[in-house]
């Protein structure tokens, strides 16, 4: 029974504070503003996906011989990328498939709908708002949880009652989480409502389960930050020290560490090497083809014009780039665009 009293006390304390009101309002504003932007963005990507599918379909209908054509496979945008964009917008979403050509990772393309320069602006999603704002808030709720009571002397008062220290911590945690859950759940609710009212989007059971998963992991994230704050609050004597420590820990964990740690993980070098070895292999195959062709022509009983057996992928292009390794693969991809105007 003691624990419910404790939780109620903490909850009332927290709910009445100024910080709670400010967090609540800012969270809702940010979430509403960004959701509408993100839905519009999703709408654009979906339209571009549809037009890509349509143009590919048209091309498929136009072509007479499938063996010589090259056809695109397009990846649809993910609806839940509104919550977490991940790599959905960035990675390639179109790949060309044709006879005699094995697509690899770097043959993927971004189908022609977006302005590539828009990548200059960092993209945002709902989970990012939680990442930044709610982690900050759970630290602000936690930093004075114990240090403040010790300063004011109320902790001693509470401990005179027959209540274990663990229960006090638990009560503090429960009440703070209840407080933080209000803006979190409200904003999820708002996002879902906005999604359901927009006519382009329809959510199914699967999506709801996934959203539930996002909510649960957000709660785990919040708890982790609350416990970090509580740890700081327990080990420091003064609230001002606890606050400074909490803020710098936040800056380090959220702002600095994720950026610093990934800086040295540039995949540029191995990628270049892989590319070079792949090009070498391709070149060897072409050399072999060239040799066989020469052999065949030398032994051919009927002398005629030199033939490439239609293997070049845009006849003008290949001869020009044949010597240049780096454009070997590009010539295929370019040929698929240029074959109408190129040859």
């Amino acid at each position: 029974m003691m624990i419910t009293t404790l939780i109620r006390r903490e909850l009332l304390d927290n709910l009445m504070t100024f910080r709670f009101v400010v967090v609540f309002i800012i969270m809702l504003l940010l979430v509403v503003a960004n959701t509408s932007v993100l839905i519009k963005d999703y709408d654009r990507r979906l339209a571009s996906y549809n037009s890509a599918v349509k143009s590919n379909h048209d091309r498929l209908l136009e072509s007479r011989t499938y063996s010589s054509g090259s056809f695109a496979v397009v990846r649809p945008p993910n609806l839940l990328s509104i919550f977490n964009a991940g790599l959905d917008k960035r990675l390639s979403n179109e790949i060309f498939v044709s006879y005699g050509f094995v697509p690899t990772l770097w043959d993927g393309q971004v189908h022609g709908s977006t302005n590539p320069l828009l990548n200059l602006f960092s993209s945002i999603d709902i989970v990012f708002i939680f990442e930044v704002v709610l982690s900050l808030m759970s630290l602000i709720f936690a930093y004075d949880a114990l240090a403040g009571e010790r300063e004011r002397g109320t902790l001693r008062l509470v401990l005179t009652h027959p209540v274990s220290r663990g229960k006090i911590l638990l009560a503090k945690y429960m009440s703070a989480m209840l407080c933080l859950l209000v803006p979190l759940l409200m904003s999820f609710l708002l996002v879902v409502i906005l999604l359901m009212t927009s006519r382009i989007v329809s959510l199914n059971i699967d999506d709801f389960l996934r959203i539930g998963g996002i909510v649960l992991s957000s709660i785990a994230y919040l708890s982790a930050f609350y416990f970090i704050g509580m740890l700081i609050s327990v080990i420091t004597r003064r609230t001002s020290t606890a606050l400074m420590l909490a803020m710098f820990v936040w800056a380090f964990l959220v702002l600095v560490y994720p950026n610093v740690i990934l800086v040295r993980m540039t995949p540029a070098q191995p990628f270049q090497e892989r590319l070079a070895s792949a090009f070498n292999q391709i070149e060897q195959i072409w050399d072999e083809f060239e040799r066989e062709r020469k052999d065949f022509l030398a032994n051919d009983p009927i002398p005629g014009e030199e033939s490439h057996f239609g293997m070049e992928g845009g006849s003008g292009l290949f001869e020009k780039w044949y010597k240049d390794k780096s454009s070997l693969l590009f010539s295929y991809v370019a040929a698929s665009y240029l074959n109408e105007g190129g040859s």
Partner: protein
Amino acid sequence: MIWHITKRELYDNLNSLRFALATVLLFVLMLINAVIHVQEHPERMQKYHDATTKSLNTLRSQTDLFSIAQEGPGNLYKKPSPLYFCEEGGDIFLPDYVYGTSFVHIANNLRAFWSLYYPGAFPNVFNIRPDTVKVDWGFVIGYVLSLIAILFTFDSISSERERGTLRLMLANAVPRHTVLIGKFLGALVSISIPFTLAIFMNLLVISMSRDIDLGADVWIRLCIIFIIAILYLCLFIALGLLVSSSVQNSVASLVILLLTWCVFVVFVPSTLASIASGFSNPMTYDEYFKRRNQDIKDLKEEYVALSQETRELPHKKIQIDSEYVAKGTEQEERLSQEQLNQQISQIQLARSITRISPITLIQHLLEVFVGTGFERHQQFLENVHRYAREYREFVTDMDRADPDSLHIIGVREGMSKKPISPESIPAFEDTLSLSRDFNAAAINLLLLVLFFVVLSFTAYLVFVRIEV
């Protein structure tokens, strides 16, 4: 008296935990930045150097005027900035080259001349690691320094009010504005000390490296960047003092400040950019290819029809060939230029709208003075266009200088057949100029000053009117 208050603030701050933590954070970040730059910059320069030599060699391997005129200059590369460590400016999302080659076949044995193509850089299509912000000065100043400014100032007035020491101070014959200025200077000096030292250490590490050579021009740019950083710091200190003097309780002041910081520094730039980029729809690549293929098809049909008529007249055929080569080149160049212009104007709109956020201002300013990012890319494109004109003029001049030539540019038979000396072909050299940069930076700098003046004036008004 101002000096007295400043000194007191300074001593208070120097002993505090936040000063130590801020110093450690700034030093670690600046050290990481320097080490990465020392490792990466020589590679970057080498890559640029190799690429330009290669493209220059291909250019100079041609000796006859016709193929020079047809094939074009090849790839033209953007020169990396020596101050890359200050601001990366999204350079990986911008193409670092433009290519001038000839693609369009009008008929058998007839190809349009070269034109400029602007590759759409999708550098991250293959890159599956998460997005990160590059740890450059722009990051340290924009995010970390502004946060530190807030953490130093949120309690400077509110906590004195809480403890009652403000009343004590004002009981002496000290005018209020003196108190405010003293506090402002105290915070400014105590943050500037670790920041300046961290920058010195960063520059020391970088200039000690054998492979990196910072010229006089670069040091001037660095000084300007430092001044801009201090101005940005002042802005956030003024914001801190404003909120701190208008709120009774220092925790409330911190919460307001942190949320303002989050909204303006973290969220406003990306949200506004996505809103603003929805206003215009630049030509998509699908549309571009569709139009391009249509144009080429039309051109071919026209040409075939005309050449049927003039099959018997060889000198007339040369005229028509030359005309269609010019036409094909022109329409190709116009189309890619049109697409590029639409893309650029979309970005420009989004960039000017995001200027509400001070972090965007400081990033734009740094980009301008460092020579990375979007402004720099436009400067590079201007250089490329100037070079393209020069190159085309070179071809016509060389042709005009030869008395044996028929002066029909576009066809091999109609052009000068004299060998061209490889050295006389103009080479592309990308340059950075400081005077141009000042113009680009002026508006951003004025906005930054304006924000600072408005914030500090409001802080003054609020502080004068509060009841102690």
